[in-house]
């Protein structure tokens, strides 16, 4: 034992100078960073602001959006084969993330604004969101992180409502960010909340208790071991804290390792020193108490300055549970402060005799470092008699009266032997008192016993050191391997309930094609169609003005934005609910508003009269059409009404229809919907995965006018179902009318819903399984020269009447609805149970880019 001590004392002498120099240098180096919030991640430290991502809908597996760095940045990971485009502040493409890496659009102001947490920058003049994108590759990764200012608080003062009542929870704002993914808009919605933090008092107490226990430990028999343990625990807590931060630091391994080690590699310098010191202290190298003091003071003050707010704020950038993080900070501050005092006190209690008298650096009295200090033992012995309780009180009072810091430093400075007799040890609390008093009983124990105790301590110190090193390595490994950027779970407070996916879902308004035709994939639950006639004398400019108003309002409504009219309140608190607005032109528009009759495209040739039909002309046709879909009846109504009001005075309502389908969540999302006859309706529609789907549904003919290319032609038929007659039929008869089973939708030729119908299959008695007059036999493209259409019908009910609002989309009705309906009208078995009541035909122009209006190129180049 003596040898070890000898070596360590010599080493300590030599090491002391540079140790202290390094510690002082570190402190100086860290001063400015400490003041500048060293423990921030992405520019955010502990905060009561909570950014929550409530939904990214529709969800796409492989596309992951997360709020990272406590709301400072958004992170998008895309591991799919298609790229995701993040939209900027004006809905322009800002970033592209995909298999091809990450690209930024230099024409998007977001490219410049999103590099900085507070957007303090200048956007170059050529960054015009309406200009063509100028893509620039920034990385090969499939992940991008950016400061999206839509998700966090940007101001250097609190929100007014929060400032007025900072201790209550507030919903500061709702936010949304759109992503484009192969034609679908993935809509991210979330909120920014103020969640007040907890009371810091328990943590203050933990700090005080930890500090006092460390100081008290000096006056126990196991002072060295306990101090070594405290130093080890301090470092472990600091490592844990740093690991918590590094784990939420988004970035690559070096970035996260540097977050782990702190600014200027503090961790790398201080932790090993601390651990070495802990081991040496455990080996009774009293001298290293000063290193414990330095390390403790440094870590404690840095932690207090940087991280104290975690005690009273609701969230912090850390992967640790909030209370564990708070406890870790409290332990570092408390243990560190305790060691700051305990180091010198340890020296004062155990300093070698030579130091007491001469301070000569060469004197190495072996006895100095022997177990126990007779003088202290005597002192404690002296107080031993009498009831423990009274002794504690007396000593505590004395200890508190004397300033332990100044007492400690004075004693060391002056080097007066026996100084401690005039400054009794600080003992607070009965347990500490007992611990302090107990050594008096066995201080005279045999040397073997003391030696055994030393061996024990040495083992303990080794474990401690190994444990500390292990903790550092383990944490570093975890950081290198772990996944960063899990959204920080909001804690505390009770933010308002986020809207479910149904209400929060937004369908893009802008794009190559109008929404509401093939997007969203599952037709919304509600439909309102309004057909308009132009007012007499409306000119080109009037019509164009109307379309401009509709475009602007539809863009706002479909994104869930208010219009600023009194109708806004109908949807206050409601989400956009997949609202789409689709605008179309009837054949009768051509010849009005300065549009030549000859400009009517061939696709818009009025429908012929079909055999046996008796239509209600007042509720048919129309110059203009508004097709409003949403997953909510109020949202659809509000939008239709607002747009109807905006049509005045150029257009007035001719007729309108309300339709319904199953609400989302009622049936599986991909399930075929049912009509009021109980059939699965839509099974054999053209599928988006079909090669010719686009050509069937959208106008791709280069001969078509520009405004129509990318558009689609809609046939609307209100078809009444004679349900009283229908419901008298037995199920088998009903199934033969269509040619499919009612329950599964399987063709009568056998199989499942999606099994292709075999029109040649016969039953046992030789009859056709799918009868000759069955609806699907007559309607199927194979028997109609390939004529096809996309049917997205809705049910309606009006008093006693009920039926189908038949909506069919196609590139050209002459190769879609018209030939099919001609056959059906002649021989369809279904005709006994239905009656076509109204009819209309509209051409929907192609979609609209931001800044343009629907049907803009209908008016040619001449300014209206």
């Amino acid at each position: 034992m003596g040898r070890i001590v000898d070596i360590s004392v010599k080493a300590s002498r030599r090491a002391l100078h540079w140790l202290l120099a390094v510690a002082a240098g570190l402190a100086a180096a860290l001063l400015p960073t400490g003041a500048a919030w060293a423990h921030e991640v992405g520019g955010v430290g502990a905060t009561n602001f909570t950014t929550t991502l409530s939904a990214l809908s529709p969800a796409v597996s492989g596309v992951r959006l997360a709020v990272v760095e406590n709301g400072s940045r958004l992170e998008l990971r895309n591991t799919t084969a298609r790229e995701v485009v993040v939209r900027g502040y004006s809905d322009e493409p800002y970033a592209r993330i995909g298999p091809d890496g990450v690209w930024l659009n230099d024409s998007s102001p977001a490219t410049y604004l999103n590099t900085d947490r507070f957007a303090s920058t200048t956007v170059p003049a050529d960054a015009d969101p309406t200009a063509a994108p100028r893509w620039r590759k920034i990385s090969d990764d499939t992940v991008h992180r950016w400061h999206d200012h839509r998700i966090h608080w940007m101001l250097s003062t609190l929100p007014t409502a929060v400032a007025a009542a900072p201790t209550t929870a507030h919903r500061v704002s709702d936010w949304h960010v759109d992503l484009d993914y192969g034609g679908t808009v993935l809509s991210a919605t979330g909120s920014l909340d103020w969640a007040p933090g907890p009371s810091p008092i328990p943590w203050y107490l933990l700090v005080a208790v930890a500090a006092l226990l460390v100081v008290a430990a000096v006056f126990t028999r196991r002072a060295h071991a306990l101090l070594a343990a405290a130093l080890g625990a301090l470092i472990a807590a600091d490592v844990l804290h740093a690991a918590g931060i590094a784990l939420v630091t988004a970035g690559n391994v070096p970035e996260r390792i540097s977050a782990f080690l702190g600014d200027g590699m503090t961790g790398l310098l201080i932790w090993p020193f601390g651990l070495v010191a802990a081991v040496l202290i455990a080996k009774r190298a009293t001298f290293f108490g000063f290193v414990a003091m330095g390390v403790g003071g440094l870590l404690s003050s840095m932690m207090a300055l940087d991280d104290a707010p975690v005690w009273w704020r609701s969230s912090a950038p850390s992967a640790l549970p909030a209370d564990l993080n708070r406890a870790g900070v409290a332990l570092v501050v408390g243990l560190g402060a305790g060691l700051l005092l305990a180091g010198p006190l340890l020296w004062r209690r155990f300093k070698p005799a030579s130091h007491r008298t001469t301070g000569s650096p060469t004197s190495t009295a072996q006895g100095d470092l022997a177990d126990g200090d007779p003088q202290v033992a005597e002192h404690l012995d002296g107080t031993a008699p009498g009831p423990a309780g009274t002794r504690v009180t007396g000593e505590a009072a004395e200890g508190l009266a004397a300033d332990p810091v100044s007492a400690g430093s004075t004693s060391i400075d002056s080097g007066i032997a026996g100084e401690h007799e005039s400054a009794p040890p600080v003992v607070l609390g009965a347990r500490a008192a007992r611990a302090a008093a107990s050594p008096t009983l066995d201080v005279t124990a045999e040397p073997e016993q003391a030696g055994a105790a030393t061996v024990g301590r040495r083992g303990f110190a080794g474990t401690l050191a190994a444990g500390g090193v292990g903790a550092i390595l383990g944490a570093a490994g975890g950081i290198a391997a772990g996944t960063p950027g899990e959204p920080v779970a909001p804690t505390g407070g009770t933010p308002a309930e986020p809207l479910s996916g149904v209400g929060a879902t937004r369908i893009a308004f802008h794009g190559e094609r109008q929404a509401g035709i093939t997007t969203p994939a599952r037709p919304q639950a509600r439909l309102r169609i309004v057909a308009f006639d132009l007012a007499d004398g409306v000119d080109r400019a009037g019509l164009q003005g109307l379309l401009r108003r509709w475009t602007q309002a539809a863009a706002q409504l479909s994104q869930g934005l208010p219009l600023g009219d009194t109708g806004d309140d109908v949807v206050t608190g409601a989400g956009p609910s997949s609202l789409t607005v689709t605008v179309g032109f009837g054949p009768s528009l051509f010849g009005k508003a300065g549009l030549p009759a000859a400009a009517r495209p061939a696709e818009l040739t009025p429908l012929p009269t079909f055999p046996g039909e008796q239509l209600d002309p007042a509720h048919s046709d129309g110059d203009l059409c508004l097709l409003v879909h949403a997953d909510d009846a109020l949202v659809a109504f509000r939008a239709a009404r607002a747009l109807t009001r905006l049509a005045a005075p150029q257009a007035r309502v001719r007729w309108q229809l309300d339709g319904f389908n199953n609400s989302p969540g009622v049936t599986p999302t991909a399930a075929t919907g049912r009509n009021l006859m109980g059939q699965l309706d839509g099974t054999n529609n053209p599928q988006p995965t079909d090669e010719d789907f686009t050509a069937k549904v959208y106008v791709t003919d280069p001969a078509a006018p520009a405004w129509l290319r990318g558009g689609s032609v809609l046939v609307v038929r209100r078809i009444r179902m004679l349900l009283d007659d229908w419901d008298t039929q037995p199920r088998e008869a009903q199934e033969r009318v269509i040619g499919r089973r009612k329950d599964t939708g399987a063709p009568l030729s056998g199989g499942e819903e999606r099994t292709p119908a075999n029109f040649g299959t016969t039953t046992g008695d030789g009859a056709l399984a799918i009868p000759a007059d069955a609806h699907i036999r007559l309607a199927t493209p194979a028997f109609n020269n390939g004529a096809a259409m996309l049917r997205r019908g809705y049910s309606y009910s009006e008093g006693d009447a009920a039926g189908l609002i038949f909506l069919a989309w196609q590139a050209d009705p002459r190769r879609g609805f018209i030939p099919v309906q001609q056959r059906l009208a002649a021989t369809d078995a279904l005709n006994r149970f239905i009656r076509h009541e109204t009819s209309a035909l509209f051409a929907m122009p192609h979609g609209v880019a931001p800044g343009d209006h629907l049907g803009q190129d209908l008016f040619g180049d001449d300014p209206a």
Partner: protein
Amino acid sequence: MSTRFTPRVLVLPAALVLTFALSGCALWGLEGGPDAEGAATPPAAATAPPAAAAVQGPDGVQRIEIIVDDELRLTPQVVTARPGRIELTFRNTGLTPHDIALRIPAATGTGNINGSATDTVTVEVTEPGTYPMPCLYHGTSGMRGTLEIR
């Protein structure tokens, strides 16, 4: 020798803690200490949004200048006008860029306005109502003006 270093090492962190403790709650940043004690609160002016009316010129156009700044405010925050042509001039007196959207049918916003830049937009409003004018960059942070047509 070592003993001479000791007080300095001891004093250094103590002085550090003291300095920052004395510098008060500003130490804890915009959100302040416990219970937002000493937090940065918005100036009183922002608490009561002032409204100002656009002034009609001889040509019948109503005009008003709106200051946008680094406090993420529009001053006046509420602009009142009568139906008709309104010319809105946005003057950015700060360094942070803004982009004011006009939630008015058929109107487009200002586009990016850099620090010290100015942008003028003219809108035609026929319907009385309250039309939001949020900043596209700072809307979430409460930078939202309104145009009231009455």
